[in-house]
């Protein structure tokens, strides 16, 4: 039985629903050191800002039960060096690439997005409005529906020939308000969730493990929260408007990936799982195939949202 693993992400056909998410794939080329990227549908770069950023003081990471707290602080080389040094390498990857961007103002997001217009091999721009680890910008944009609408509309106006993805934070009272604002303003795709605020304290030093005190939690611990948020956004916003969701949060096994699609995701992000297991893409792909066989499903895309209307 042939299983069709392709998914349609707002017109862009991906050969697999698996997407390496921002922050866990480097600029793209680095990922080939540890992972067979041909098993992925797409790769998302780490967040690119207008100017280079050194990132936060170490320690930047702490492992906790079922999760990882990070506070990297968007360390990156900046858009100009990205285009000059990394883009030529990205072109050789043979996998569709999404560039994730962040700014401290709407204008800054727009200036970065404009520079990406000329890069043919980039199929989508993802707005990071959900990073908990920088002092200005990032998550502050993602908490206010009005700002999300303005930002999305402004970048949409400037972006030519690329899909626009808005990446949402779960650190809000009602994620559907933010999702609705992004879709209203022209987002082609939503990705969710980014990390949740979290903190871990070294009880012997009696101070936080992470130098900035707190960070963003990822990993299996946040999967139920991610599934819930994807389900909510899918049923209340995306299903009727046919906006695809990239479901992200704690995906470690093929069962997790299936679950995420059943909740409403069209594509599934893998992040911290990559660090945990370099064979994750291959193992999830194999698992998805055998699941489809045993359920007699020939197209993976038919799973999207099946479990969303359960009543």
């Amino acid at each position: 039985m042939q299983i069709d693993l392709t998914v349609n992400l707002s017109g862009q056909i991906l050969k697999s629903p698996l997407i390496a998410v921002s922050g866990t794939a480097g600029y793209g080329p680095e990922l080939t050191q540890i992972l067979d990227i041909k098993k992925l549908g797409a790769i998302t770069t780490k967040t690119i800002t207008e100017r280079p950023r050194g990132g936060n003081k170490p320690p930047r990471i702490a492992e906790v039960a079922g999760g990882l707290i990070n506070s990297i602080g968007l360390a990156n080389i900046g858009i100009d060096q990205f285009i000059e040094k990394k883009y030529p390498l990205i072109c050789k990857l043979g996998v569709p690439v999404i560039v994730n961007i962040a700014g401290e103002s709407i204008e800054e997001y727009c200036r970065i997005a404009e520079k990406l217009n000329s890069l043919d091999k980039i199929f989508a721009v993802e707005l990071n409005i959900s990073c908990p680890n920088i002092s200005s910008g990032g998550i502050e944009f993602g908490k206010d529906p009005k700002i999300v609408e303005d930002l999305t509309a402004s970048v949409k106006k400037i972006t030519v020939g690329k899909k626009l993805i808005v990446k949402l934070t779960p650190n809000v009272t009602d994620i559907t308000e933010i999702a609705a604002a992004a879709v209203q303003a022209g987002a082609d795709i939503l990705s969710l969730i980014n990390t949740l605020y979290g903190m871990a304290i070294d009880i012997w030093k009696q101070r936080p493990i992470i130098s900035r005190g707190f960070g963003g939690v990822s990993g299996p611990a946040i999967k139920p929260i991610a599934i819930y948020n994807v389900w909510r956004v899918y049923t209340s916003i995306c299903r009727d408007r046919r906006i695809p969701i990239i479901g992200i949060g704690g995906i470690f096994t093929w069962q997790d990936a299936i679950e995420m699609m059943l909740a409403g995701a069209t594509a599934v992000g893998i992040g911290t799982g990559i660090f945990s297991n370099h064979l994750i893409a291959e193992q999830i792909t194999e698992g998805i195939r055998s699941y489809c066989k045993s359920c007699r499903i020939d197209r993976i895309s038919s799973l999207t949202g099946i479990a969303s209307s359960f009543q």
Partner: protein
Amino acid sequence: MVETKEGYKKTLFGKIVENKPIRTGSKNYIITIKITSQIFTQPGHFFLLYPENLSMTKKEAEGRLISYPPSTLLGRPLSLAGILQKDKKTYLTFIYKITGVGTALISEKKPEDPIRLAGPLGKICFSPPNDNLKRLFIVAGGVGAPPLFYLANEYAKKGRSLEKLYIFLGASTANEIPIPQEIKAEQEYIRSLYSFLEDSRTRLLISTDDGTYGVKGLITDLFEEHLKKELSLSSGEDILICSCGPKAMLAKVVKASERFNLPVKVSMEERMACGVGICQGCAIQTSEGRFKLCCNDGPVFSGDEIDWEC
């Protein structure tokens, strides 16, 4: 770089050969892992060892395969202490301290248990023996010793011009010294780790915080004392200092070395997720006020590259 599984360069599956406290009652363990491929490593290279229970991954429930996330997510970065290639098999030996859940889980593994690891990782290693070098000073704190044992062996084997090999080894107490009580009683993969001790050029000096073994006090004091003595014999042009251990110890070693204008190389440690430069988690502050990555710009650095104040 090494191809290990078609297309993948870094993931290895091995079998535990031995895994035990290095001395009776020690919290420091020595583990040897056998892999069936040949790999090339240098002193300074490290591996990520994944604590998960691999023998559980093939279980089924009601005819359906179970798979679940591991109880600890990340690999534990351990510097290689020694490598023995024999009969087309590779024996990798590490020395580690139980410091948390991950290392505690690793310590539970028994001979024949499967283990997943990734490596060799790290871009900058200790340089191979060089022909102008006559005196090598190695300063090791506790389980910082493994990459330096590896280095000492390389010099003992290949350092043709080497005249003196000083090993300063500091530990909190006698139990924690990362050398087995009876090396001769150990298997070859462990014995070979300590063959530098049989070299006539080697001088091993040990200190413990509580005086239960060797000199009571800080290893850095012992190091400085002997360094001064050596410098009174002849100028330091043929000296290299290599160190690994707690950051406060490294800072002292670097300060002393700089005072005498001697080159010093240190192997660093930082909390790490990916080991290959992707996550940017293992940042180290440099003396220029920037960040370098322990995994990808190191783990071996020149002493003057690091900001020791922070």
